[in-house]
């Protein structure tokens, strides 16, 4: 694709434009296809971006998701805690491990007992917070090792139920991207077909133009210009509508956080604006290829 050609296209040449029949079902088809596809693409993009943000956030929260509880006679607690920390130190996937102080333990229990619980006097187990490094460690393996070396330790992997959520969010993001790819491909194919339909419906126009001495470039230009503009217009309208729709989706505010933020955030607003441009480029390449190939086959 030559960019100068693409740019000069928008300048227009009303003369060459007139020789191709002005309205055509194919042109309207292109408008509609690119509009609808742009709309869907923007939605898929929003879904994908939101899922991506979600995956990142949940991933962060996952990092400190597991605790180890050491219940042992009072005199053994300290020793077992040291042993457990040593084990954790050598467990792959565990980034850091730290025994909680009494104040921290009290804060954790506050919801259940209120602020006045005498932690010191109770046979409360020692808690060890596990911070995962990357992805996840293997809880089953860790349990086996702990069973052998620290009999009083119980691993509570309370992020367990959240990990699949992150997976799900990543998958949703992937699904969104796959949909966008699919939409782009389908759009390109449909515009190519629409251009081909227009070209073969206008076989006679082309024959007449060749007969009176029109060059291939002159003929192709009128078709390419028309289809590129239609795709651009259609996609722009579709994108605009989709962005309005996305912006209108009620935002659940700060507390919501999780999935509600489907709207575009900050610099992400750039992405949907690429959609019409992409559509125009796709249409330009598709139509130009179709036109020049078809013209090459005529005398």
């Amino acid at each position, binding site marked *: 694709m030559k960019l100068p050609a693409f740019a000069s296209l928008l300048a227009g040449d009303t*003369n060459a434009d*007139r*020789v191709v*029949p*002005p309205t055509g079902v194919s042109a309207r088809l292109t408008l509609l296809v690119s509009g609808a596809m742009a709309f869907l693409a923007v939605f898929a993009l929003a879904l994908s971006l939101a899922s991506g943000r979600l995956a990142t956030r949940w991933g962060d929260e996952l990092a400190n998701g597991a605790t180890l509880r050491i219940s042992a006679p009072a005199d053994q607690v300290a020793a077992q805690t040291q042993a457990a920390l040593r084990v954790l130190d050598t467990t792959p996937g565990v980034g850091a491990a730290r025994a909680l102080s009494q104040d921290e333990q009290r804060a954790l229990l506050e919801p259940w007992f209120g602020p006045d619980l005498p932690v010191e006097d109770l046979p409360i187990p020692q808690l060890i917070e596990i911070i995962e490094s990357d992805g996840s460690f293997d809880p089953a393996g860790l349990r086996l090792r702990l069973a052998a070396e620290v009999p009083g330790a119980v691993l509570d992997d309370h992020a367990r139920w959240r990990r699949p959520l992150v997976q799900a969010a990543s998958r949703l993001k992937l699904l969104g991207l796959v949909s966008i790819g699919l939409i782009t491909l389908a759009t390109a194919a449909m515009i190519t077909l629409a251009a081909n339909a227009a070209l073969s419906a206008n076989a*006679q*126009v082309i*024959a*007449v*133009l*060749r*007969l*009176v*001495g*029109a*060059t*291939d470039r*002159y003929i192709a230009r009128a078709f390419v210009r028309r289809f590129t503009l239609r795709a651009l217009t259609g996609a722009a309208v579709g994108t605009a509508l989709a962005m309005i729709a996305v912006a209108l989706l009620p935002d659940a505010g700060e507390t919501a956080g999780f999935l509600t933020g489907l709207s575009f955030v900050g610099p992400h607003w750039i992405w949907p604006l690429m959609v019409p441009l992409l559509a125009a480029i796709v249409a330009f390449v598709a139509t130009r290829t179709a036109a020049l190939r078809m*013209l*090459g086959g005529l*005398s």
Partner: protein
Amino acid sequence: MIELENVAYSYGYGGGALLSELSLKLSPGSFHFLTGPSGAGKTTFLKLCYGALRPTSGEVQIFGKDLRGMDRDDIAMARRRIGVVHQDCQFLDHLSVAENIALPLAVSGQEHLADGNLDELMAWVGLTERANALPAELSGGERQRAALARAVIMSPDVVLADEPTGNVDWEMSQRLLTLLVELNRMGKTIMIATHDLSLIRAAKAQVQARVLRISNKRLQLAGADL
């Protein structure tokens, strides 16, 4: 202007050659008729002359250039100097008759030349009243006249007309002939494929016309019986 040397042509594979051993030199200012039974290859021959078909063997020269050395753009440029009337007249259905006749000017970027010329030409072929009609609204004869007008609007060096009077009455065919004879007197080269022997006879009274006949795949000079 246009020269064929030992040209043969066959459509696709299978069948033998449709035309063979054709040699002809269309010199400037010459006037030719082309006859022969239906299906003999008149249209095919004309298409060879303006580069719409490339010969199976032999050499075609258009305005001194070998056709084999011409790319698609070269052929497009040559077409601007050759006025062609197709046997089945084709137009751009969404443009008016006047716009269709002026199309060769538009395509070569010379619309400004149209004005006076166009009106006079339309009047001569009797289409002044139909100037703003669409081609689909023309009668068969009107279409042929429009096609001839389109072929000569650029006053091309060569006019190749394929059965230009098949659908018009005797008087109109005389008018069209007069137009071509006038062009010929201005030094243009004319070649007309036709079945209409009386047209040939009428022309012979006005210009020095050679009559070629395709028979048995060859091009022959027709006898004096015409």
